[in-house]
């Protein structure tokens, strides 16, 4: 009997990614037919670049969901890190207004300290979830509020946007030389490439799947589950922290209600990309396709109805339909 090996057969993850890419194409064509001026190169570029921040978050969220765990703290971490970076960087004693006075740290030091703040939130998540085995949804909903709360206290519920050095606004607004593509988008693309390699090619990636497929068996097979989950939560928080700094730089402001609801967007694109909510299955590339679907739908809704009030409803319906289609396709393939 001929024994078949991996060569020539697509994995279920690749199948779902491809399936969702086709769904994306169909939605894009429908949108092009219905929405005037939608079928344009600039629109397409915007579709990819507008959602860079949710895609960066999606990387951490996807890895964690593959292990069967949630990270709902990422939106809060963005807000907190952005506010912290601004606060550390603002000149000390610059003005009478309290919100205009920061700590006056050098730019580099301010960023490093802000990222350490993000890592601290990731560390809290890891301690309770990986070490004490508390349900991840509870802990990360808690740290979501804690992180945003810290941002609100420091900004007194508003924002800090004065007495910042010019260098603070550079990285978030700069474009890749010779193009109109922002540095932030480039960073997103780089992170996605690294994530795909880690996921597909490394032992670390493989262990991530093992934990999600069967945590008990993973432990009995020698996987250091606690340590692995700790790394993942720290990475997810770090990615959110980087996003927070990029967004704060783009607007040259630390805003306490920045990124509200992004944790849900990150979760939705991960699920749209085919990652199983119970773990053991999923891919970062799928998440990117999921982000594009969400991006097309959001843009088309705006273009079509002109009223942003409809966005949530349309987003919800399409997400629902897309996930149903995906489960159906996967079940058919497995049967």
């Amino acid at each position, binding site marked *: *009997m001929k*024994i*078949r*090996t*991996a*060569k020539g*057969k697509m*994995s279920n993850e690749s199948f779902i990614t491809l399936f969702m890419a086709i769904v994306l194409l169909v939605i894009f064509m429908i949108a092009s037919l219905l929405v005037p001026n939608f079928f344009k190169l600039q629109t397409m570029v915007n579709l990819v670049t507008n959602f860079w921040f949710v895609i960066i978050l999606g990387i951490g969220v996807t890895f964690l969901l593959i292990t069967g765990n949630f990270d709902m703290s990422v939106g809060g971490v963005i807000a907190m890190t952005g506010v912290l970076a601004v606060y550390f960087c603002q000149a000390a004693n610059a003005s009478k207004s309290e919100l205009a006075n920061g700590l006056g740290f050098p730019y580099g030091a301010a960023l490093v300290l802000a990222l350490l703040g993000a890592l601290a939130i990731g560390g809290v998540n890891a301690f309770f979830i990986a070490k004490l085995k508390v349900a991840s949804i509870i802990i990360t909903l808690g740290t979501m509020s804690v992180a945003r709360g810290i941002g609100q206290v420091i900004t007194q519920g508003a924002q800090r946007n004065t007495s910042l050095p010019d260098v603070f606004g550079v990285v978030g607004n700069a474009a890749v030389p010779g193009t109109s593509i922002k540095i932030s988008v480039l960073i997103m693309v780089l992170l996605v490439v690294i994530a795909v390699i880690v996921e597909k*090619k*490394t*032992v*670390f990636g*493989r*262990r991530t*799947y*093992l934990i999600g*497929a*069967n945590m*008990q*068996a*993973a*432990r*009995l*097979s*020698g*996987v*250091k589950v606690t340590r692995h989950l700790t790394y993942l939560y720290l990475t997810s928080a770090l990615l959110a922290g980087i996003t927070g700094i990029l967004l704060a730089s783009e607007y040259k402001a630390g805003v306490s209600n920045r990124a509200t609801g992004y944790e849900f967007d990150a979760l939705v694109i991960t699920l749209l990309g085919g990652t199983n909510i119970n773990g*053991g*299955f999923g891919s970062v590339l799928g998440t990117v396709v999921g982000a594009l679907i969400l991006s097309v739908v959001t843009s088309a809704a705006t273009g079509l109805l002109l009223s942003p009030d409809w966005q949530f409803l349309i987003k919800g319906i399409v997400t629902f339909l897309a996930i149903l289609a995906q489960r159906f396709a996967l079940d058919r393939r*497995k049967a």
Partner: protein
Amino acid sequence: MDNVLEIRNLVKDYPGVRAVNDVSFDIKRNTVHCLVGENGAGKSTLIKILTGAVARTGGKILLNGQEYCAGNPKDAKNKGISTLFQELNVVDQLTVEENLTLGMEDTTFGFLKKTDKIKKIVSVLNSLEPSIHPKQLVSALSVAKKQIVEIAKAVATESDIIIMDEPTAAISESEIKRLFDIIRSLREKNVTVIYISHRLDEIFELGDTVTVMRDGRHIETKPVSQVKERTELIRMMIGKTVFEIYQPKEKRSEEKILEVRHLTNHKLKDISFEANKGEIIGFYGLVGAGKTELARAIYGVDEYKGEILFKGKKLHPSPDKAIAAGIALVPEERRSQGLFTILTIRGNVPVMNMKKISKNGFINSAKERKATLEYIDKLRIATSGTEKEVSKLSGGNQQKVVFSKCLFADADLLILDEPTRGIDVGAKSEIYGIIRALSEEGKSILIFSSELPEIVNICDQIYLLYDGSIKANLQNGCDINTEMIIHIVTGGE
């Protein structure tokens, strides 16, 4: 005295196995009827048919003279057969009274109503065990008292029969005494008890009648008063099983590889033993004797007091350290502990030794495929390819995947917990072949099993476990006395 239950020519087939084979016997009303047999004798399947958990293949069951057939446990209960499972069926967060009336509350417009029914049930509980207060939370009760709550519920709902599956496995001596008093008092309450236990002494203490089953067949039903001694029961349980003749090894290594000293934890009591290179050591005991707990402790999954030396070095209790030192475990439950069933064979085989297929943390997929193919070939795993999901393999082939994982880890000591549970005869003998070959290669093997033929056929040394301690250590050979072994593991001296 009339019969409450009559079983006639009962048959149950599973794919490849006849679990219950033409069984007929009667159970007299208001008696305690004991059911004994080795693991795999067909007791559990018989009970599952009675409780409606599985459907029979053929035969007849008469309850109170009428044809009886239950579709599910609730149906069985309504028809008069309640069961006290080992996994108790009480809700910890509710009070005793709420538990007793669960599922049969009287309501008006959806609101609960206090009725005479509740009073009646509570009075039954009171007559059985006055120390349990109806308003008490069940979570505060001991296992034994929870059992009594379940018994009270069964009595109050006028069950004809209560089936008790090893009720004494998890309770203390004094509680057992109290439970026995209650079971005896059930006769006056018009209840028949079917009592299943591995502890033979309990049968003499409690039973009116005993039925012995073996290999799915009914062997004997007789009054306990007519059974002269426990050896008679043991003989009926094991029959004239012919064991394959054990082949002693020609030369034995004297090189010590494992030393376990004074291992003690929640289940184990001061366990010490040693294993030499290439030796196959069997641990035999019944359910609850501590086999799995010992396997898990050596592998570092569960905590313990005491000391384990492997290759002369102290072992730190953690599975990843055990694997690194050269130990691998085939766990008791292959689906929940051994395999990643949603992943492919390729995703399973290399997981215990990723270093072999990777460099600097990057996986070499060619090596990975080659290694998987090698083990598919070596252990003759029946599959269409490396990319087959493990959940789609048969039990025997799944177990071979678990073995592949452990062999790939290049371990010098393999711990096998129930290595052939739930797999067919052909796959079983293949697995025995693998175990023997590994021993020839110089690997040491610890086998934990509740199947005596398995232990007697392949092990060089045999340790008998009862209630968490080692009761005897036997050198295997032609003079091995199986009756004596059963005598010891059922609690005899």
